């Protein structure tokens, strides 16, 4: 589904990603872990198409197509979804109106007829129930005045509505207490399916207790320096990142 080859990226002339290689197949869940400043969020942003970053080398192939040439909205239409670490508050745009526009823009891009108001509402209500999202939030301005937990749940709700092939969760656990975390994780697990893939970007292992990954990768200084299964995450939880840093420095010495 997704193949990243030797990806280099920088922001304001500063190199952040230094040759990422990663393959994600349909149905898989990959966790990207690593210490602060290792480039985890940059990788998520580059995949979603944030324009602040400059890709200096490498390629990303999604479903057989070169991804980096596409605008963010085209990537979304082809099935990529980024759950933001800091969802943006947008006063004056209601969540429901925003989602209707998004759904129909994506349908238009893919040559499908727009949903009418009744079809759309029915679909949205079902999805809201699925991720236990309170209906009353739909009528409010997008994320405006939402609690941290409500914002993150809104991200997962949008994911449910847009049905992406590849979801990238960028530090979805940050700022959540354990109850909110569990609700968000349940939402993600409900949406898992054999033809959908997920990349979970996280600093801590605790989210992975709930969203169990098939593979765990450790990012350090803009490269994947270690890959393994879910046991690797437990090891990191126990020992921290220092031993990995030491391994990397030793290899370079």
């Amino acid at each position, binding site marked *: 589904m997704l193949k990243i080859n030797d990806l280099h990226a920088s922001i304001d002339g500063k190199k952040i990603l230094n040759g990422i290689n990663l393959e994600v197949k349909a149905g898989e869940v990959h966790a990207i872990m690593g210490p602060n400043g290792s480039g985890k969020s940059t990788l998520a942003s580059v995949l979603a*198409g944030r324009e602040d970053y400059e890709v200096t080398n490498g390629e990303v192939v999604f479903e057989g197509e070169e991804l980096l040439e596409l605008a963010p*909205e085209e990537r*979304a239409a082809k099935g990529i979804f980024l759950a933001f670490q800091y969802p943006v508050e947008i006063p*004056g*745009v209601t969540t429901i109106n925003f989602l209707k526009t*998004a759904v129909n*823009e*994506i349908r238009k891009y893919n040559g499908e007829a727009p949903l009418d108001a009744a079809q759309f509402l029915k679909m949205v209500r079902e999805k809201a129930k699925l991720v236990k999202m309170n209906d009353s939030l739909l009528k409010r301005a997008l994320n405006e005045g939402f609690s941290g937990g409500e914002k993150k749940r809104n991200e997962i709700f949008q994911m449910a509505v847009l049905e992406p092939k590849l979801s990238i969760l960028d530090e979805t656990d940050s700022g959540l207490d354990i109850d909110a975390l569990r609700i968000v994780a349940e939402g993600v697990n409900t949406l898992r399916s054999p033809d959908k893939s997920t990349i979970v970007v996280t600093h801590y292992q605790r989210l992975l207790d709930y969203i169990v990954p098939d593979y765990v990768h450790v990012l350090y200084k803009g490269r994947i320096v270690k890959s393994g299964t879910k046991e690797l995450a437990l090891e990191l939880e126990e020992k921290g990142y220092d031993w990995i840093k030491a391994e990397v420095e030793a290899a370079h010495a």
Partner: protein
Amino acid sequence: MSTETIDLKSKLIADFRSQEKAVNGEAQSPFYQTRRQALARFEDLGFPTPKNEEWKYSNVRNLVGRDYNFSAPHTLTQEDLNRIAIPNVSGNILCFVNGKYEASLSTIVSPADRITILPMRQALEEKPDEVNAWFGKMADSQQEAFTALNTAFAGDGLYIHVPAGKTVEQPVMLYFITDTRTEDVASQPRNLFVVEERAEVKITESFLTLGEQHSLTNIVSEIHVGKEAHVEYYKVQNEGGTASHIGTTQVVMEDRSHFYSATVSLNGAFIRNNLNIALDGEYCETFMYGLYFPDGKQHIDNHTIADHRKPNSQSNELYKGVLRGKSTGVFNGKIFVRQDAQKTNAFQSCKNVVLSPEATMNTKPQLEIFADDVKCSHGTTTGQLDKEALFYLRSRGISKPEALSLLMFAFCEDVISQIRIEPIREYLEGIITQKLA
């Protein structure tokens, strides 16, 4: 197009003098005396230049260098009006074309015991004492050249009187239509709205143009808001690309009265709005909303004053602007809190989005506070669109143009949603949607 400039000031003064010869018995009337004094002031003041601090960013040189017809005939039909008017507006419709009242295009539906609506000339004949009690008493002809000029030539416009305790259910809609299909046109409407104690009324002034020739409107509205009266006042500007507008609305509020206003300027070559509110009573409350959306080479300037003269009153102001092309915008918001005006609450905010590198916005909040126990706040922001919000929308599959218009519409809706007359709100939302498309 002729670019020859003329001396409009001298021409107007000469016009006044020649008309004066035809004035007989009227010459001693208070109305005429006020006009004559105003002309003398205009003669001294002359048109403002950018050296005048109040006109620093709004240069009127080009507007006042043109030979307008101040009593231009028109060929506006009911059909023309229907085509450009705000759809579905019901109530009292008062239509002025090139500054003159058009009875055939007007409808008064509210009962006469609730509201008197008369063209100014007729009001002067039938109720001279009522008119003279207020005319020229509120607006400032001493320092403001355009107000002095308007006062000097007063005679066209509308007189509204709402007696004490009466509620006017049907809104009052004034259309000022400039028909410039054959020549350059100027008009100087002068309105007087007197709303007595505990009375309630909704008044809208709407400005539209037909035709491609140049026009200048210099309008003054004086509004008296009696004790415990409630007035809603909307100003809607959707004129042509060659239309200039100088407008002053002077409001004086008495104890426990409410004045609620929105000024929406969507199109016009040059617009200067002065909204001056004197809170001349205790426990008054006023709201001032504004939205301007210039494009191309349009220039829109809003000057507002909330003058707190007595204790315990509140003013709330929110103006928003979207600037595109090579347009320029000006916001100057004054809050005066006089020494007596303890326990004043005064809030002001002006937010602008500049969508083009060639557009310019000048903002100047100006607070002068002479009382010590007051709550005042002000803030202005001018910036580009929130990039993070744009990326957020695009990352959900919304195309860049669609995301931009969604964000801009939301920005404008903040002000538009304050308009409490639904057909007007829908009309404005429609124009904004078109502009954003």
